[in-house]
């Protein structure tokens, strides 16, 4: 026993020592594990604290999200409303567009109608104009015959019955003759004037110097008390209807001579100057002139600024001048000082244009 027992004891001791060691090891391990646990606990606490914070954050974020969601709902509602409005506006625009198109169609229709009306009116005007022309023609034409009869029969009375009518009676008959003659002249002038409106204007280059030469030869003033003296400047050529422009010159020159007849001398200046694409011609006299305040009557048909006793005439000459110049798209105007003279101007297109 002894040996065995001690062996056993040694073994047992050794075992105990080992166990002890083991226990100590385990204790140390436990301590480490405890420390670890403590650390882990701390960590957990930290994490828990963090989680609390994170939770708070999340709660806050959730709240924010909810707020945003609320806002979004509101915004959505607004958008929906706006969309509706837009749709409404779009509908309105479509309607407005349709209306606009209708209005456009209406305008186009009205325009077409207007154009049609203008064409119609123009045609009407033209036909009325023609009617008026033929009316004025036939009136003046038909009036000539009775006036011729009045004039002619009165003359027969004067010539064949003068032994039965006293001198006062003859004077009265003479007045009838003069007046019917005057009426005949008025009618002839009216005829000439109405004919002008119908006459075709044929434009060509007019040799103005040559034309004036011709007119000077045709218009003879030699049996006049004061024979007119003419001073004719350089006259550039212009575009016009020669026979009509000749009439313009004749009327203006005859007027210049006529209204100078009470002066001692008759000096007439004829000239021209260029302005842009126009040639402006003028006839200047030192005659009776006229008061510029009656200027607007100057070119009227049968308008006169002087009495028949002062200067004879029917008052058609300048009306004809104006009508002719206007038919050439030109202008006619005048300047005058009473008792000092007048200057009449008219413009025509120059040949270079």
């Amino acid at each position: 026993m002894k040996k065995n027992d001690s062996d056993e004891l040694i073994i047992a001791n050794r075992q105990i020592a080992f166990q002890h060691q083991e226990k100590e090891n385990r204790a140390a391990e436990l301590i480490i594990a405890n420390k670890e646990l403590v650390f882990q606990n701390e960590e957990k606490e930290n994490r828990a604290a963090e989680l609390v914070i994170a939770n708070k954050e999340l709660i806050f974020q959730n709240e924010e999200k909810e707020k945003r969601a609320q806002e979004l709902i509101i915004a959505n509602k607004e958008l929906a409303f706006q969309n509706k409005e837009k749709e409404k506006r779009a509908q309105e625009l479509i309607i407005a567009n349709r209306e606009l198109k209708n209005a456009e169609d209406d305008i186009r229709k009205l325009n077409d109608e207007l154009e049609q009306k203008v064409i119609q009116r123009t045609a009407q005007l033209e036909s009325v104009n023609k009617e008026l022309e033929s009316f004025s023609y036939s009136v003046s034409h038909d009036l000539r015959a009775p006036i011729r009869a009045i004039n002619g029969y009165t003359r027969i009375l004067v010539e064949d019955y003068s032994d039965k009518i006293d001198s006062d009676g003859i004077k009265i008959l003479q007045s009838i003759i003069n007046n019917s003659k005057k009426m005949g002249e008025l009618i002839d002038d009216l005829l000439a004037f109405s004919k002008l409106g119908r006459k075709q204007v044929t434009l060509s280059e007019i040799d103005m110097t040559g034309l004036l030469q011709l007119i000077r030869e045709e218009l003879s003033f030699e049996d006049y008390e004061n024979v007119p003296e003419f001073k004719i400047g350089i006259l550039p050529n212009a575009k016009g209807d020669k026979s009509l422009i000749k009439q313009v010159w004749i009327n203006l020159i005859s007027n210049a001579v006529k209204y100078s007849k009470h002066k001692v001398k008759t000096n007439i200046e004829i000239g021209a100057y260029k302005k842009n694409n126009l040639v402006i011609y003028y006839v200047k006299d030192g005659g009776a002139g006229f008061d510029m305040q009656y200027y607007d009557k100057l070119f009227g048909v049968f308008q006169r600024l002087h009495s028949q006793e002062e200067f004879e005439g029917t008052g058609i000459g300048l009306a004809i001048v104006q009508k002719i110049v206007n038919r050439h798209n030109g202008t006619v105007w005048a300047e005058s000082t009473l008792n000092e003279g007048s200057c009449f101007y008219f413009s025509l297109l120059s040949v270079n244009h």
Partner: protein
Amino acid sequence: MSYHNVEILFVEDSTDDAALTIRALKKSGFTNKLHHVINGAEALDFIYCKGDYTSRSDQDFPKLILLDLKMPKVSGLQVLEKIKSDPVLKFIPIVMLTSSNESPDIEKCFELGANSYIVKPVDSDNFFNAVKEIGLYWMVLNQPPQ
């Protein structure tokens, strides 16, 4: 009334114009036999010896026809056209004596062969002179084919 040896055929519908023209001719010394008809139809009857003029010789031509333009029934233009398109009658001088100084009328008359175109002046002096000149020119100066 005798229609023989009529030298002037005067076609005029206006009594007044006719009276004044005839007087002016007489006063100017034209005693030539004149016959006055009052419209174109009668003028053609005279020329062609029809109607009231069947007794007239168709070998007897007037020396001059004074022809008004605007007349009822047959107008002066129609008379002019008829006579001037007749190979025998076309040599008779025809003077248009009218109130119209319208270019188309004047052109038409000359186109149809009128020998002259005179617008009746309103003033009696001018009228008298015009008629006198017509008489002088066509009855005295003018030499028609024999």
